[in-house]
């Protein structure tokens, strides 16, 4: 059961091979048995999950089941979930039971999916290794000495370990694509504005975007269809029709023009990762695609620009955690300043504080133009690079990360950690969609192929990823933990 994709599970449920309750119970048992060590969940909502499974089974019995009814999944702990602790991986919100549902959660519930719980993450989505969680690090299911990636590390690990067939993540600088690559699953970051941000605890508002993480592109297509679309509660969500993302999956790739950005194959790229990616590109050539080299000349400015814009927005977004209306409050505050300073000092972890301080500093008087305004100008140049490239080619391909999953504790220095996101971060600045699909291994550790498209080209990306998954079996490989029977 736990090895199946969402699409396969949907068929099995419909055929009556097992019920949603049986499936849910099975997965809850696996979580119970296997997650203690993996640490991919912060909160398991067994009771609500079983109730939802029963409701889905009843709907099916009544002949009213929709395509996602009864399918289990998990939610990154950044999605506000009514009546359930929503901590964003922070001590600050460890006591926060959300009084409302995020739009994504609302839509997934309406579609009949069964949420098993909330997955671990870097605190407030700030990190690339899941080591910045108040709830402790998550282990990579392929290799317990490696990180699962971040910030949606819990979601990626839970899917890879066969605890849940799919999970929701968010991606601000690579937080869906990089952990998907590190854990050997498929993760889609949609176009900015494609999925409502309402109810998603904000890290950097102009960059954050939610998306599905699953075993196949086909599963991602099904989930994206359920969560995408305009939301009146999010001014930045786009009023644009949502296509059936499964419709174009099988379209042939003959004539597909693939661009390989020169800058994504340069210094710092692990040669084995490069080899895997180039091998994947060859598969595409065999499927009828043509390949050319393109240039994204401002690539190297993406990380510097990101580390101005994201912390600036974060420093402001995180000001609401002041110990007054919700969240952590220090004991016996002496006065107002003490209440603020101690509640926030105690509630936030080190990386969050670091980014709040950078953002506060770069926005402060005398620095704004040199940092913030400059970074926004560079942001335009970076977006233009992509728009120019998409005049020439249909999709861009490259590695999702310069290395496979690194060792837990390996990147102590913040700057070297930041540089890990070199291939994913520019996409967020430009607001583009991107997907990471499994494309090989370096030793035991998976490699992800990243495919990028122009704004709102999700259907095309899913099609390109799906055809690759029909031609290869990297996405079918499972770590030992997923094979374990409970």
């Amino acid at each position, binding site marked *: 059961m736990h090895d199946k994709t969402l699409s396969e599970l949907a068929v099995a449920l419909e055929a009556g091979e097992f019920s949603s309750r049986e499936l849910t119970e099975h997965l809850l048992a696996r979580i119970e048995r296997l997650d203690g060590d993996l640490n991919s969940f912060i909160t398991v909502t067994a009771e609500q999950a079983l109730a939802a499974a029963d409701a889905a089974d009843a709907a099916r019995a009544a002949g009213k089941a929709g395509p996602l009814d009864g399918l289990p999944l998990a939610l990154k702990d950044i999605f506000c979930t009514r009546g359930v602790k929503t901590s964003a991986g922070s001590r600050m919100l460890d006591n926060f039971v959300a009084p409302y549902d995020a739009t994504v959660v609302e839509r997934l519930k309406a579609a009949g999916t069964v949420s098993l719980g909330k997955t671990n993450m870097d605190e407030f989505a700030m990190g690339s290794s899941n080591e910045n969680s108040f709830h402790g690090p998550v282990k990579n299911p392929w290799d317990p000495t490696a990180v699962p990636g971040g910030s949606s590390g819990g979601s990626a690990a839970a899917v890879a370990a066969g605890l849940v067939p799919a999970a929701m993540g968010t991606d601000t600088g690579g937080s869906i694509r990089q952990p998907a690559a590190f854990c050997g699953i498929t993760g889609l970051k949609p176009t900015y504005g494609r999925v409502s941000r*309402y109810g998603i605890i904000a890290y950097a508002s102009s960059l954050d975007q939610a998306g599905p993480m699953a075993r196949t592109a086909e599963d991602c297509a099904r989930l994206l269809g359920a969560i995408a679309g305009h939301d009146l509660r999010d001014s930045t969500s786009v009023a644009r029709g949502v296509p059936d993302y499964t419709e174009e999956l099988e379209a042939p790739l003959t004539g597909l023009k693939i661009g390989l950005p020169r800058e994504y194959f340069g210094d710092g790229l692990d040669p084995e990762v490069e080899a895997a990616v180039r091998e994947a590109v060859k598969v595409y050539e065999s499927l009828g695609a043509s390949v050319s080299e393109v240039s994204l000349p401002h690539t190297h400015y993406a990380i510097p620009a990101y580390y101005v814009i994201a912390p600036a927005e974060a420093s402001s977004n995180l000001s609401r955690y*002041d110990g007054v209306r919700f969240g952590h409050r220090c004991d016996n505050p002496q006065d107002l300043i003490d209440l603020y300073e101690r509640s926030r000092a105690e509630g936030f972890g080190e990386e969050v504080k670091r980014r709040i301080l950078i953002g506060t500093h770069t926005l402060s008087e005398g620095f704004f133009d040199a940092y913030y305004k400059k970074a926004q100008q560079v942001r335009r140049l970076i977006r233009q690079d992509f728009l120019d490239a998409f005049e020439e080619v249909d999709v861009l391909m490259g590695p999702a990360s310069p290395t496979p999953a690194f060792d837990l504790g390996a990147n102590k220095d913040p700057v070297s950690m930041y540089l890990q996101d070199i291939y994913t971060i520019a996409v967020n600045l430009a607001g583009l969609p991107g997907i990471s699909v499994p494309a090989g291994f370096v030793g035991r550790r998976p490699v992800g192929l990243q495919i990028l498209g122009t704004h709102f080209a999700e259907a095309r990306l899913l099609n390109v990823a799906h055809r690759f998954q029909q031609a290869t079996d990297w996405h079918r490989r499972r770590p030992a933990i997923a094979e374990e029977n409970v």
Partner: protein
Amino acid sequence: MQWETVIGLEVHVQLATRSKIFSGASTAFGAEPNTQACAVDLGLPGVLPVLNEAAVAMAVQFGLAIHAEIPEVSVFDRKNYFYPDLPKGYQTSQMYHPIVGAGEVEITLDDGSTKRVRVHHAHLEEDAGKSLHEDFHGMTGVDLNRAGTPLLEIVSEPDLRSAKEAAAYLKAIHSIVTYLGISDGNMAEGSMRCDVNVSVRPVGQEAFGTRAEIKNVNSFRFVERAIAFEVERQIELLEDGGQVVQETRLFDPDRDETRSMRTKEEANDYRYFPCPDLLPVVLDRAYVDHLRETLPELPADKRARFEKELGLSAYDAGVLSASREMAEYFERVKDVCGDAKQAANWVQGELSGALNREGLPIQHSPVSAEALGELIARVMDDTINGKAAKQVFQALWNGEGASADEVIEAKGLKQVTDSGAIEAMIDQVIADSPAQVAQYRDAEPDKRGKMIGYFVGQVMKASRGTANPQQVNALLKEKLDALC
């Protein structure tokens, strides 16, 4: 040394929207604490703002009313600081691209002269909540019902030169926003508040002096008093060889003084940057044109029309156009009675007197504009005399009838102009007053004019006030003189 006062005002006007600027929570005043603070107003994790169309429309209407430029694009910025009544740790405001550009407001001074005051810009922002300091075991209670109420902040240039000018400017703004119906202008409930920047400089000096900002002044009177105090304080300080410190001060109406707000910490650095949760607001020309076409007639235009077309004095025109309600009432009275001057006299005389005695605003007048107009018409067509008119007015005020005609009828106040009937009453009075008649007869002819008053009074009394006084006078004189 002669000193010149330089004043600039930042007026915060609460816009009369039903819901908040970025959320669907109600803006109604006076609800139980925090019952009108929704998830967005509370800044719960994950919530997002969506801009209220009415707030935008109202801001644009104001801009059009002060002949300001309306930029095509405006942008919301975040002003970052921590305070318990500011739930998100930032106020969403407009720093760099406000919705209303430069404009001007005409103010009228006591001597009837006018002056143009430049408005630098006006921008939209959200209001904060309220801190309540009554005893909660030494704690402060925070009510966020007001958080997110739309505010239009109108920033003037430092064009005002006296406390009186500042008050006149504030009144002009009040009158514009209430004319437009974009605010209830209720200063007692905080719908309009202002920050006053005051400095002084030696007459003839070009450069501005160091200014003090007096925060949150919330009445016309307080603005005048706060400025008067502050100007005196600054001049005294300078003349004693001291210096004005640039600081924020509070006006204490009980002590009639301003005092320095204790600086809570270092100078603020608000770290403004464009709010990433809101997109640029783009106003297309058709939308702005539509708002322009539907703009009501504004106080300055109305005042000019009252003077030019209705022939009212500058003073009357000013008073009657000061508020939209007053102007509308006056114009209805005028339309019903057909005489602007009579209408002006009644509205400013009898009606305003009665309203002031009872402390009622004109929109709550127990006498409707239609009834008052009809009453004036009845005086003008001689149906009633002036004395009866006051009785009719009092009766209408007391709710003793729906219309003037009804009261006139019920009380039998219709003026008697039938000379036969009047003569009969005169004959009766003369017959009943032999002593007075004798005095009259014995008096010198030039003293008789005064003595006739007694007889007029008696006749009027006999007619219960309804006799035409001119007729009574003429007939009495004739009859009494005939007896001499």
